[in-house]
């Protein structure tokens, strides 16, 4: 109950209601873009400042290895489950698998907000883990999709450009570098905008996410019960694996919760854009509904407290 009484979550519920009840509420596209840019910069900046305070950079090595390992392992596992048990076509299974291999920045932000509220500390480098986990899952997913693809050469150049210089990676890494170079001592002047207003902006953004999610809910019936089950059970399984690996890699309770959340989360921005152009024969309704309509709301409302509990089992 305590998690539900979180303004950030309630704004999301409000957005879902607005979308479900067909309210004419709709945030202007420019505001959505502005908020997403703001959140990416703020998360990067906060991560950079905290990274600057990390005393020993060696602490990052094991968790980073764990993060990459999780990122590249999820797609083949998810793919096998979707193919064997779900009987999905190859392109559909590969595209969905890539979404679960990558991560959701907003889910990460909600997990950070959750830990901040509980006053549970976490490592300063968790944002670095977020950045590390964005791309490998997508890359492996593309690989799986292309392995048995019938035709066509994949243009690697433009794809790499979009993946690494796309808005989300560019701003996250950019913010991280700026925050790191500036350090806690000189961040003062921008602190009110990027740190103090963060939770409010996140709540506002989730209002919009709620509306978008509500529009996907109508597709739930079309995607079938298997995908609904997959979208809720798979994150639990992945969260457990993430919490365990996090504990093994020496993360604290907060850090392991974040790694579990990252493992459990599914991308719906970077992966979706990449899949649409690299695996065009996959049905976008399936992967978007799974990641955005099922797993995203599941994670932010129910998942994160469960991952916190899972992490506490190992630590």
């Amino acid at each position, binding site marked *: 109950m305590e998690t539900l009484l979180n303004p950030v979550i309630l704004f999301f519920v409000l957005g879902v209601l607005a979308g479900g009840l067909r309210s004419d509420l*709709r945030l202007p*596209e420019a505001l*959505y873009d502005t908020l997403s840019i703001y959140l990416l910069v703020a998360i990067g900046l906060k991560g950079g400042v905290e990274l600057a305070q990390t005393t020993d950079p060696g602490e990052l090595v094991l968790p980073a290895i764990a993060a990459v390992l999780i990122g590249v392992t999820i797609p083949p596992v998810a793919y096998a489950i979707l193919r064997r048990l779900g009987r999905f076509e190859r392109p559909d299974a590969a595209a969905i698998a890539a979404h679960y291999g990558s991560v959701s920045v907003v889910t990460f932000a909600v997990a950070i907000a959750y830990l901040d509220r509980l006053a549970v500390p976490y490592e300063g480098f968790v944002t670095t883990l977020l950045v590390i986990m964005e791309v490998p899952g997508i890359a492996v997913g593309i690989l799986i999709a292309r392995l048995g693809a019938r035709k066509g050469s994949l243009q690697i150049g*433009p794809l790499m450009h979009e993946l690494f210089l796309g808005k989300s990676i560019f701003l996250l890494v950019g913010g991280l570098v700026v925050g790191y170079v500036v350090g806690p001592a000189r961040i003062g002047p921008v602190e009110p905008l990027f740190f103090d207003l963060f939770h409010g902006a996140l709540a506002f953004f989730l209002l*919009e996410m709620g*509306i*978008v999610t509500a*529009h996907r809910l109508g597709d739930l019936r079309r995607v079938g019960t298997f995908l609904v089950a997959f979208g809720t059970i798979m994150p639990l399984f992945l969260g457990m694996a993430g919490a365990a690996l996090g504990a093994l890699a020496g993360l604290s309770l907060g850090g392991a919760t974040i790694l579990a959340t990252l493992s459990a989360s599914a991308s719906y*921005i970077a992966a*979706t*854009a990449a899949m*649409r*152009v690299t695996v*065009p*024969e996959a049905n*976008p309704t399936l992967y*978007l509904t799974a990641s955005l309509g099922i797993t995203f709301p599941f994670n932010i409302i129910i998942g994160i407290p469960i991952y916190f509990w899972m992490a506490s089992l190992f630590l």
Partner: protein
Amino acid sequence: MTVVTEGVLESRIVAAVKQFGAHGYTVTDARGEGSRGKRSADWEHSRNIRLETICEDEVARAIAQHLRETYYENFAMIIFLSEVEVSRPEKF
């Protein structure tokens, strides 16, 4: 020539248009509904674009054929060609 399609394809279509020899183009955001459902542009992935280019007939047909072969199967895309009268022919 007018192409209405998914926003994710913008950079690729622009590249094709230039490659086949059109000298310029105009892109606008678009919304609508068709055989692939409603494209409401309410968020990044459902954004649609409408690209227009004025060029020679054979250039337009070459672009159209290339786009048809590459994207028709899996993407929401409408292409139509129309005669236009331009006031400054030397520009095209």
